[in-house]
């Protein structure tokens, strides 16, 4: 099962043409009550989930959206108040910094994870011994919470307890490694930790992609005289580009939703150096009692997500349709 195939909806499209659209049937004769009940079983089974999903996705979103343009402060006040909170939000330095941080963090985090993930996937793809051991080691961070990750790396990065202290104790007294308390460098600590956490994920997916590449392709390239690095760069990696896009989209989504990691690692500090939008939302809603502005900030997160996800969904559907056509 490769991701490509897992994502291919062509089977689904085929199914739907062969499907049984019973509720659309016209009934000249009246079937029994039991038969009619049986006919509606799938819909009845799905109803609770559908109701919950509707509540959760549509009602809750609309609710938050409305709060963001309401006059709410500490408590919800559903009177319309205009878009003033959005303006105020974008005027606040903290929010602007957090959005900038999101861009820088998101870009470095995604690129770094992709780079490390690709490197690890290629290394593991060399028919190494104990493959599952290596894979387990690189992937385990994903099973650990951001809270634990952030806490542990904070200890390691902190000058009093971590690397700097160890270097000092080893006799290198001038060693200096205080990025985590440095306004200009702290964000890179978050990036590093994020990559540590997510590169295994990128590795797993890219490795699955590498394994789906036809082995004959590599043999042909070797016979053509290409070196292994060149074969990967020119032949193998280009053929699995859809996987890179998929991984990028998922990682961007992680980046936009990032909250716990920063809380545990730097708490957004020093100052506001590592603040991200999700932290601002929490603070506005639950610490400062400005829930309208908090809701506005939440909507901005949704917008950022939509900018990433909507084109991706359109693109995958377009590709699926195109593929369906070429396969007749």
């Amino acid at each position, binding site marked *: 099962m490769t991701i490509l195939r897992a994502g291919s909806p062509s089977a689904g499209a085929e199914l739907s043409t062969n499907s049984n659209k019973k509720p659309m*049937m016209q*009934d000249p004769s009246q*079937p029994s009550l039991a038969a009619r009940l*049986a006919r509606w079983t799938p819909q009845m089974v799905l109803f609770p989930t559908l109701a919950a999903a509707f509540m959760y996705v549509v009602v809750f979103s609309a609710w938050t959206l409305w709060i963001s343009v309401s006059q709410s402060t500490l408590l919800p006040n559903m009177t319309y108040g205009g878009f003033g909170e959005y303006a105020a939000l974008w005027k606040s330095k903290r929010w602007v910094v957090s959005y900038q941080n999101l861009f820088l963090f998101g870009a470095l985090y995604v690129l770094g994870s992709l780079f490390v993930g690709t490197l690890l996937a290629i290394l593991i793809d060399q028919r190494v011994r104990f493959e599952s051991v290596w894979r387990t080691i690189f992937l385990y961070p994903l099973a650990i919470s951001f809270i634990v990750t952030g806490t542990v790396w904070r200890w390691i990065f902190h000058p009093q307890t971590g690397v700097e202290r160890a270097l000092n104790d080893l006799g290198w007294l001038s060693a200096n490694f205080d990025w985590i308390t440095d306004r200009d460098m702290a964000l890179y600590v978050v990036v590093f930790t994020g990559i540590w956490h997510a590169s295994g994920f990128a590795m797993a997916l890219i490795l699955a992609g590498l394994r789906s590449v036809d082995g004959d392709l590599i043999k042909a390239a070797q016979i053509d005289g290409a070196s292994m690095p060149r074969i990967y760069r020119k032949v193998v990696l280009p053929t699995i580009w859809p996987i890179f896009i998929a991984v990028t989209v998922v990682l961007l989504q992680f980046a936009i939703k990032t909250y716990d990691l920063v809380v545990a690692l730097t708490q957004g500090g020093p100052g506001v150096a590592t603040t991200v939008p999700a932290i601002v939302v929490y603070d506005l809603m639950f610490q400062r009692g400005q829930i309208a502005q908090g809701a506005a900030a939440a909507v901005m997160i949704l917008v950022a997500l939509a900018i990433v996800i909507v084109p991706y969904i359109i693109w995958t559907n377009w590709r699926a349709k195109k593929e369906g056509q070429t396969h007749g």
Partner: protein
Amino acid sequence: MSSLLIKNLRKSYGSVEVLKDINLEAKSGEFVALVGPSGCGKSTLLSIIAGLESVTSGEVLIEDKLVNNEAPKDRDIAMVFQSYALYPTMTVRQNMTFGMECRNIDKATQDDTITRVAALLQIEPLLNRKPGQLSGGQRQRVAMGRALVRDPKLFLFDEPLSNLDAKLRVEMRSEIKKLHQNVGRTTVYVTHDQIEAMTLATRIAVMHQGVLQQYAAPKEIYENPANVFVAGFMGSPNMNFFSARFVSSDAESGIALEGGDGALLPLPDGQYDHLTDGQPVIFGVRPEHFNPAHEGRAARKGNTSAVVSVAIEMDEPTGSETILMCKIAQQEAIVVCEPDEAPEPGTTMAFEIDMSKISLFDPSTEERL
């Protein structure tokens, strides 16, 4: 009493009409083959008979009972799928008893039936295996066994042999035929393979683009195809189609091939009196209805025969017969003859056509004349 009756059946998916006004009847014990190229609607028709698809309009009756709104389980049918659709987590025995279990048939009857059917299909040693441990032919048998234990009003087969290799397919084909002769149940059999249809069916329904082209006994379909499509689809190699004209004067009448030397091919008396002089026709001859002229086989039988000159371009010996790619009156043609009679490519040879076996079609409607 008809076992299956389909009246004015239509089926659309949105704006696409996949079945157009189908009328079909199967008598009790009949073996009906639905045949046609992929996408012709034959599988959809089978699914509708099974109740797996709803109808857009029209009626489906099984043993004179309207079943349009009956669920598949209430139609008393059994079906063999192309993919076999054996439940992968159940043993062969469980696969076969599942239907009886759903119908609350008691355990003793289940066991008796399994014993009987397993003996019939010679699958006793497989009963405790899972489908994954079976070969293609064994799976095929089990799939048939699952249908047989039910003793239904109607057997439905959806291309059951297409996943088997050529040799096994021929074996299973004759087994299905034997089985049908033994059990004697009405059967509807979907296939795209015209040989399967010819060998198995008592009647063949040829379908194309959602339209039922012809519904008749195999012999009738082969000898008197209703239109160009049926003529071309049934028979292998395909029937030759020549553009030609019907010429009739006081002296003689017959078919003149376009691009030929003007010689008239005489038609049997009485059959084509409705044609008018100069009328364009499509002249259809099956490759196997050519014979070397010197044998005079058709003439000896007292049939009307015509001799044409055949320019051989290439030959394909299959062993039992030789297929000749050739030109007749500048038109492409395929001729089948016995290997030792086959002329060399590049030569020209006279062949006799048995004119009692030819078909004429209207070029505009493509219907039989």
